[in-house]
């Protein structure tokens, strides 16, 4: 399909990008890897007047160890995230989930920030963001603000980013020692988005689960925490009680109906997959 015409702008600094975005007005969009935006343009589901391509803005790219957190620049590609030693060491859940995104071609173009800014609940990273309580660093011509993951995803494909704002990067808190991680993705083909996904971080000590963080992919218009499960596993033995806890995975969710699954099946999957993810995470504590 062929997109409608648009202006194309390519800034080389963040300030320049913000200025261009402001000048281009309401109908301008930020272009990162283009792997979510371009399909929308080609299907004529989006008609931006201008695209501001932030792909050459060096300060938006890269991973840094910042003591209590890892900072991931918005335009860092999925592939760079997967292969970053810092990410692997301090927030392995991010690497595990990112490795399941599509295929190598997509991972070399698609970006960490683009995936989050796109706010697709079927994307693999938003649920990880809420599970790990990431913080979003957002720039605008008037300054900088941070938004917690819990406040970033507002609705289906709608984030807290205002027109004119650019997501510069994301802070991923380090959880410290004793945690195990797993991302369980259920999809119909290797390149397909998750029918349902479950991101889990579990802290174990002396055979019981002290604490768990569970994020759900594609179980509603926004990524959600399975708080019922988190509550139920606290202090549970890492055995049959995990299955029971996982039985609460779909509490409070509002899963979509589409060609790949009806809501009742998604609810069922969420329960089964959460159990599997808890088992895996509890079996492999790191650090």
């Amino acid at each position, binding site marked *: 399909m062929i997109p409608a015409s648009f202006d194309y702008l390519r800034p080389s600094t963040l300030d320049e990008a913000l200025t261009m975005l402001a000048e281009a007005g309401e109908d301008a969009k930020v272009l990162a890897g283009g792997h979510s935006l371009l399909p929308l343009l080609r299907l004529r589901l989006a008609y931006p007047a201008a695209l501001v391509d932030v792909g050459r803005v060096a300060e938006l790219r890269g991973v840094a160890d910042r003591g209590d957190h890892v900072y991931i620049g918005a335009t860092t590609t999925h592939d760079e995230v997967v292969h970053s030693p810092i990410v692997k060491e301090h927030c392995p859940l991010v690497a595990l989930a990112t490795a399941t995104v599509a295929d190598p071609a997509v991972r070399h173009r698609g970006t960490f920030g683009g995936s989050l800014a796109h706010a697709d609940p079927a994307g693999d990273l938003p649920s990880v963001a809420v599970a790990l309580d990431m913080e979003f660093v957002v720039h605008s011509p008037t300054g900088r603000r941070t938004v917690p993951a819990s406040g970033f995803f507002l609705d289906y494909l709608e984030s807290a980013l205002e027109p004119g704002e650019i997501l510069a990067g994301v802070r991923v808190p380090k959880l410290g020692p004793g945690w195990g991680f797993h991302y369980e993705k259920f999809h119909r*083909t290797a390149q397909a988005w998750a029918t349902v996904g479950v991101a889990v971080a579990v802290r174990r000590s002396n055979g019981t689960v002290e604490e768990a963080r569970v994020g759900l992919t594609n179980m509603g218009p926004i990524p959600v925490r399975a708080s019922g499960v988190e509550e139920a596993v606290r202090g549970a033995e890492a055995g049959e009680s995990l299955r029971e806890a996982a039985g609460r995975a779909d509490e409070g969710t509002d899963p979509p109906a589409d060609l790949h699954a009806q809501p009742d099946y998604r609810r069922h999957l969420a329960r089964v997959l959460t159990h599997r993810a808890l088992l895996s995470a509890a079996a492999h504590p790191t650090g």
Partner: protein
Amino acid sequence: MTEQIKEREALGGAEVGRARRRKEDARLITGRTQWTDNIQLPGMLHVAFLRSPMAHARITRVDASGALARPGVVAAFSGADLAGEQGSLPCAWPVTEDIVIPDHPPMAVDEVRYVGEAVACVVAIDRYAAADALEAVEIDYEPLDPVLDMTEALKEGSPKVHEAGNKSFTWKFAEGDIDAAFRDAPVVIDRTYVQQRLIPSAMEPRAVVAQTDGDQFTLHSSTQIPHILRVMLALTTGIPEHKLRVIAPDVGGGFGSKLQVTAEEVLCLLLTRRMGKPVKWTESRSEGNLTVHHGRDQLQHIRLAAESDGRVRAVQVDLLADMGAYLMLVTPGIPLLGAFMYSGIYKMDAYDFTCTGVFTTKMPTDAYRGAGRPEATYAIERVMDELAAEIGVDPMEVRRRNWIEHSEFPYTTICNLTYDSGNYEAATERALALFGYDKLRAEQADRRERRDPVQLGIGISTYTEMCGLAPSRVLGSLSYGAGGWEHADVRMLPTGKVEVVTGTSPHGQGHETAWSQIVADSLGVPYEDVAVLHGDTATSHKGMDTYGSRSLAVGGIAVVRACDKVKEKARHVAAHLLEASPDDVEFSEGRFQVRGTGASRTIQEIALATFAAHDLPDGFEPRLDASATFDPDSFSFPHGTHLCAVEVDTETGATAIRSYVAVDDVGAVVNPLIVEGQVHGGIAQGIAQALFEEAVYDVDGNLLTTTMADYLLPSAADLPSFVTDRTETPATTNPLGVKGVGEAGTIASTPAVVNAIVDALRPYGVHDVRMPCTPERVWRTLRSREEESA
């Protein structure tokens, strides 16, 4: 048979049978070639089609004037504008005398009957301007009721797709006493299977470039059938056949979807005629999903009568075939290609087949890889498994009790086809050994015992198929509009190189390589010295093109025959030059030699001599070349045994293919690498039907699967490593002993996979899962069984 093999050996040489890499691949893979969309002509205009958003509606007003005001737009037309000249798209297979073939305007004039039907077009200076201007065309529709379900469509009072009603035809075939066979039959299996609608997804989308100098017309199209297309377009557009040249440049796949005379081809010709400038149209993937003719979509009711030991008495089939909104080139014939295949490799006393073609407000269906035979093979192979389960016998054993034994060939089946050769025992034995059948059965028993949430299933498909779509006389008896012969010219150039012109039209099959191998052996020339020309009606004046796994079994034989003629001519020249009797001249490895002497000439020397023509036998026409047209006596019948092991996760419903073994018998093999490629791709496509692909229309008749995010195609990551092997039982009906391999994998694999899934779930009371067997469907099937037994 021995005679045939002798003739094959007479080809001598080391090329046939060699796993050559394909000579066409470098340019195809790098894209450094003339794909139709790569063609740029001076002054070329671009066409975009506005397509109906309604499944069924009356067009009450079209106003394209808004588009004309858009930048870059040169012209815009509605169906009404072209009504006087656009004619009706052809259907070349009127299967019965009373078949209803509705008028099929390339662009809808007053009624639309499926979402995606062209209703207007814009011609502009580039693709973007054309696409943008579509938004300015105004069309008013008055909605009519969609017709989406075949069974409902046939009921009294259903909304009608066409004035004449929703039934196109009913076609019947019967042999033997079906009533007697079912009367008192100890075992009767009665099943209904859904062959879901599929969307052929060639890698290269369709593209058309049409041009004219005011007198001559040239149409470039990404088509499988340049020759047939030329005839049909001449008949449809009124452009005289001798003024129309059709070129299929390199074509990136078709799977049957480019065996068609499309609305876009006709309209581009009309537009270039009107405007006097070259025009181009290239579809987008989403446009393609809507408007490439779809495949399968049949509702199969199959009944099987058997003795209590599992010997089959009879099969009865009642089929509804969804034609979609119109009959396209061979739409109604597709189920007939399966009609003779429901007996599979099995012996029986009676067979009864009825097929009704039904109109719905959906994209028309037509040929898709296998065309009719995958449907038939699926039904019989599924039912053989059901029979085995019913009588408690291993499904392979049930097949053994029924199949035609090697010693019984040639064998005339209940469908009146004479299978010339086959060895089901050999292929099966090899497959079982490669698969480790007994070991897997033991593991299955263990998992069942343990109530393992992941169950193992084993699926069998002992298939055969008919291909080499051929004898013209038989095609005629089935009312098909064209013949089944194929043509080749072989010419030796003065420098000793060889040009082969083939009437086949490869679109990924590797004919340039395979034909070169055949010619190299036959004429004793180096493989590198052979060029193969195809796909252009100006250079290839006779041909029937490529579909139905016919190219090697029919077109390859034409090449062999033309080579034989060339050699015979050359022998006379050699004898003349060597002052010997032609009878004393022997040919071997490219050299003519007088028996018992050392005197000889190479075939290249003879070629040069016929060019100079200074000293030729009396009456010899200069140049060393010959043509041959081959019309075989019969179809060919590849067969094989495919075995599939799946693991089904009963908690999520997900199926994972654990191992897949294919032992195919496609007769003699010209190039094992090409055969392997066809088998791999074929199996992948068959697995895709079993597990992934389905074209879905909603209740209003909108296609929901318009992108690859919704219409799921598996990639290599979703498929296991196939274990493939071959047995070689040469066909006796052609001198190469070849059968055809283009569709075998697709035909075989779908039932192997579904049989495996059902086998895994039989302990849960499951005896069918509708295709595609998605995790959700498997899960729901299991759940409904649980609820039933609770």
